[in-house]
């Protein structure tokens, strides 16, 4: 009898731990390290209509308890993902969450329509918030009306539930969440990266060739917790939480805040075995907390409960 399984729109998760989009490629590399069947789900790298090379390098820079990335959505394009990546992933009994990105609304719609029909794609994650593409991306994520319109159009064509990935680079995250919920989102994933920059001490220039990039890692966890705490009280759809998770304690904190599952991004780089490790450690943590099922923890920070 599992204490970790979670049911979310489109997703039957054996456990609530999955790699975050962009930090796990399409799974092939990590499959050499451990059995991907252990994972609750896999959020694959953003897919765009056409293949993209992405930004020039350097694409990453380190920051205090975090990192910046400006990969620029490099990916083999819709066709490449449909032909190579998704079929390869079919050998695993793990739901795939396809991260969908684009420059124009039509791109999103087209990718969503096609990719949602792949047999192992159980949900879409609408990446309206990637700070690393100049056109479109960022505006989609900061203007509620635009985000809502995009959500609606994608919902109309998608064969699977649609999760919208929210950007933290906004003043009113609750307003944004409510806008996409109203537009039909089945769930939220949050948060994407904060916009940041580092400069090279010798040249004075930005370290990233793209100048700015997305800040991820433990540094941003308190921002994510705050946003999930605020949003989860104001929407009815579930939230998959992410941002700097590095321990089972962090997972518990995300659940308390209001997340129903979590994703690990940056920490896959520091410890490539982190996902299976956390999954293994979770039951003992639940014992400690005297909780029989992890879902009991969802929203404990704001739910009134006995004791």
């Amino acid at each position, binding site marked *: 009898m599992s204490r970790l399984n979670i049911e979310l729109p489109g997703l039957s998760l054996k456990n609530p731990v999955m790699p975050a989009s*962009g*930090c796990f*490629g399409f799974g092939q*590399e990590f499959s050499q390290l451990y059995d991907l069947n252990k994972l609750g789900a896999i959020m694959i790298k953003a897919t765009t209509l056409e293949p993209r*090379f992405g930004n020039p*390098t350097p*694409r*990453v820079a380190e920051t205090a308890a975090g*990192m910046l990335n400006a990969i620029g959505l490099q990916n083999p394009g819709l066709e490449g993902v449909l032909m190579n990546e998704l079929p390869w992933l079919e050998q695993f009994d793990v739901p795939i969450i396809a991260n969908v990105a684009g420059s124009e609304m039509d791109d999103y719609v087209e990718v969503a329509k096609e990719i949602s029909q792949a047999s192992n794609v159980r949900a879409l994650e609408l990446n309206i918030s990637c700070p690393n593409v100049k056109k479109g991306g960022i505006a989609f994520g900061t203007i509620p009306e635009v985000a809502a319109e995009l959500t609606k159009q994608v919902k109309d064509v998608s064969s699977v539930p649609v999760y919208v990935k929210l950007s933290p680079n906004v003043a009113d995250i609750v307003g944004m969440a409510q806008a996409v919920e109203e537009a039909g989102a089945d769930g939220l994933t949050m948060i994407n990266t904060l916009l940041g920059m580092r400069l090279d001490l010798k040249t004075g220039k930005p370290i990233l060739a793209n100048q700015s990039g997305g800040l991820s890692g433990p540094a941003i966890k308190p921002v994510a917790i705050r946003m999930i705490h605020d949003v989860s009280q104001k929407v009815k759809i579930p939230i998959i939480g992410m941002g700097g998770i590095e321990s089972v304690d962090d997972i518990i904190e995300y659940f308390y805040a209001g997340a129903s599952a979590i994703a690990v991004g940056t920490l896959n780089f*520091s410890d490539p075995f982190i996902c299976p490790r956390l999954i293994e450690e979770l039951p003992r943590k639940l014992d400690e907390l005297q909780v029989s099922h992890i879902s009991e923890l969802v929203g404990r920070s704001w739910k009134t409960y006995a004791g």
Partner: protein
Amino acid sequence: MIQQEIMRVISQQEIARNIYELTLEGTMVKQMNQPGQFVHIRTNPGLDPLLRRPISIAAIDQTKQQFTVIYRAEGKGTNLLAQQTENSQLNVLGPLGNGFPLNEFHPGETAILVGGGIGVPPLYELATQLHKQGVKTIHVLGFQTKEVVFYEQEFAEFGETFVATVDGSHGTKGFVTDVIEKEQLDFDGLFACGPTPMLNALQQRYKDRKGFLSMEQRMGCGIGACFACVCHVNEPVNGKDYVKVCSDGPVFPIGRVVLT
């Protein structure tokens, strides 16, 4: 097989100014079969710094299950690394990447090994293994200045060894390419590791020769999953217009990667 292992520090010493030679022990050594591969080291168990540091394997000792890296203490991570002492434990991911191909050279042939600064270390294990299979090696090592020169003697034991320093304080003044020209060195093929401008100069000069270049890029994962370390290629490889330094490289045939 890539492993993550808590390895034991056997020894660490400063062998030139800010240049450290660190020897580690663990079962991962069994997997190290190619010179030019690298390891990804966590310099601190905590979050500061967060990312691993890629460092080339400089020497492998299979009998003792030990390997050696040589690195420059420069920023936060490598300075922390330099503080490790005998019996400290280090979290190492490796071996990573594809190293220098040995089977492209035949007994009796001569390879020139060109290293710049902290690009020199992987050439040492390469020289060791080339010699085992009867390949002659010539070494051209470039450094900034006298104080940071290392392993000159060690390479000299394998064959002719030339040193260039940018400021002329040791060996020839100038760059490795100056040495190759000045000495009119003759070779069947070339291996190089060092800063991109050096690799670029070599690639332009010797693009039609047999040769292999080892590249550096800022990395995230080190295993091919994050797309941090990509480079454009001159011709598509396996239908892709890019390669990843960490998993496709760090060593590439001369001419393959677009260098600038």
